[in-house]
């Protein structure tokens, strides 16, 4: 589904990703872990197409298409979703309006019938119920006045509604207390399916107790230096990132 090959990217002239390669298949959950500054969030932003991130080398194929040449909105329509580390507040833009505009724009881009307001309301109310959100959310402005936890839950709610094929969760656990973390994880788990893949970017192992990944990758200095299964995350928790650095083969860190 997603094939990243030798990806190099920089922002403001500074190289952050230095030859990252990764293969994600449908149904898989991959965790990307790593110390601060390793390039975790850069990976999420490059995949989603945030302006300012410049890819200098390498390729990203998404369902066989060259992802890097698509506009951000086209990536979304193709089935990519980024759950933001810092979701933005949009005063004056009502959540229902925003969600319908997003869903219909994606449907239109895919050549599907747009939903009328009745169809959309029915769908969005179902999703609110499924994800355990309060219905008042729909009448509020996007993320305006939301707590950190509410914003992260709203990201997962948007994901549930937009039904992406590949979801990238950028530090969705950061700033959450344990209850909020469990709710966010339950939301993500309810969306796991054989057709859908996840890239879970996190600094801490804690989230992975609740969203159990199939693969764990350690990102350090712009590339993946270690890959394993869920056990790798627990070892990292026990030993810290320094442990990976020591285990890294000399040629990889050169």
């Amino acid at each position, binding site marked *: 589904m997603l094939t990243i090959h030798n990806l190099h990217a920089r922002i403001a002239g500074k190289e952050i990703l230095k030859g990252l390669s990764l293969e994600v298949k449908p149904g898989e959950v991959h965790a990307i872990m790593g110390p601060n500054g390793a390039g975790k969030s850069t990976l999420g932003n490059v995949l*989603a*197409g*945030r*302006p300012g991130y410049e890819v200098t080398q390498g390729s990203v194929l998404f369902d066989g298409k060259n992802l890097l040449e698509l*506009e*951000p*909105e086209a*990536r*979304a*329509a193709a089935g990519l*979703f*980024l759950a*933001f580390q810092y*979701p*933005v507040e*949009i*005063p*004056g*833009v009502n959540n229902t*309006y*925003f969600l319908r*505009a*997003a*869903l219909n*724009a*994606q449907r239109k*881009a895919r050549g599907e019938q747009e939903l009328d307001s009745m169809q959309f309301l029915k769908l969005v109310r179902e999703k609110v119920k499924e994800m355990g959100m309060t219905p008042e959310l729909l009448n509020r*402005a996007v993320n305006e006045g939301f707590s950190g936890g509410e914003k992260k839950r709203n990201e997962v709610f*948007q994901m549930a509604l*937009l039904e992406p094929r590949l979801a990238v969760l950028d530090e969705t656990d950061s700033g959450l207390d344990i209850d909020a973390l469990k709710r966010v994880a339950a939301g993500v788990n309810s969306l796991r399916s054989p057709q859908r893949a996840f890239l879970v970017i996190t600094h801490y192992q804690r989230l992975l107790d609740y969203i159990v990944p199939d693969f764990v990758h350690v990102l350090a200095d712009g590339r993946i230096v270690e890959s394993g299964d869920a056990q790798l995350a627990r070892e990292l928790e026990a030993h810290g990132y320094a442990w990976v650095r020591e285990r890294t083969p000399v040629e990889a860190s050169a």
Partner: protein
Amino acid sequence: MTAALPFVQSMHAAALQRRLPGSGLAWLDAARTDALQAFADRGLPDQRNELWKYTSLRALAQRAFAANDAAAASRAGAAALLPVPARQGSRAVFVNGAFRADLSSLDALPEGVAVQSLAAALRDAPEPLRFLLDKRVDDDDDGFTLLNRALAADGLILKVAAGAEVGEPLHIVHVGLAAEAAAAFHLRSLVELGKGARLRIVEHHVGEPQTGHLTNIVRDIGVHANAHLDWTVVQQAGADATLLRRSKVRLHDDAALDLHALELGGKLVRHEIRAELAGARSRFNSRGAFVLHGRQHADMEVLVAHRGRDSFSNAVWRGVADNRARGVVHGRILVQPGADGADGSFYNKNLLLSPDAEIDTRPALEIYADEVKANHGATVGQLDEKVLFYLRSRGIPLETARRILVRAFCSVALDGMDPAPLREHCEALLAEQLPEVSA
């Protein structure tokens, strides 16, 4: 020399050519002559005038305007331009500066509401208007108020008796239609709400695209004790129109004015609002937005003077300029001696959608009383790239994302606007205005 300017020449020619309503009344003739003389001395306001600092009239000064549109009383086509909310309900319609009884509908107004055109009032009973029209020239007058005094041929005289409550809004519609030549219309209006009265006014400006007329409106609005005026301005003047307005508002004890303004049309548009919070606990809320394209120019002057104790004013204005448009927002809060406990605020945010657009905003506070709360803030910025990316990452195309954000930016000006159909009408107008937002 100013005397040589085509604009000035055409105004003097108009004064000679046209027999105005009420002419022959000695006091009125004298007032008009004095005003014209004062205009000859002062000329058009220039940019040294603090209130005209960012609005240049150099191009206007080179234009000549016909004295009036002689065919205004019979011009067809106005009905088709009437805005949707005004097609039902009570309305006073002016076409090319002249009141049109045939297009107006004033029969359903409740007891206690008296509406008359200025022309009719001057014909039937001019004396009660003497206080309004027989004024000495003073320092606050500028070239346009003087021209208005010299040349006003029509307007609206609206009085609401004490205690009268008007539930349904009264629509005042100014329609601009193409004529043989671009003409200047000077309108003088009066709105008086007696004690405890309530009234809603919706003022519309609509017009054909290429008319080139100048409309110069001066009005006095008096809101007496405990009365409440709700006033909405929906300005979609024709693309070639020049629209200049000065509204002088006086609020007495516990009186309130709520103003909503949506300024979308016209070529050169100005509204100078002078609100005097004369009474104790009087209140003035204003919310407004302009959205400008092409080479449109809009100048909003919101000048608030607190005189009464514990008087309250709050202004929230938004400006959007695209292409080579130019916006001006000037918010002034003056707290006079004795207005202790006054609370005034003025907030203005602006959005530039093009590197060639410009918006000048000036908030100003002057305080001469005690225990006063006063706040102001003004910004000029661009659309937030982070927010744009957030919308795009959800699949919303860039152009749509920009429109959504500009609309949201302006929507604060519609907050509190009612009734609901009026608000929906304004939201639709805003949405219509925005597809033109450039990349």
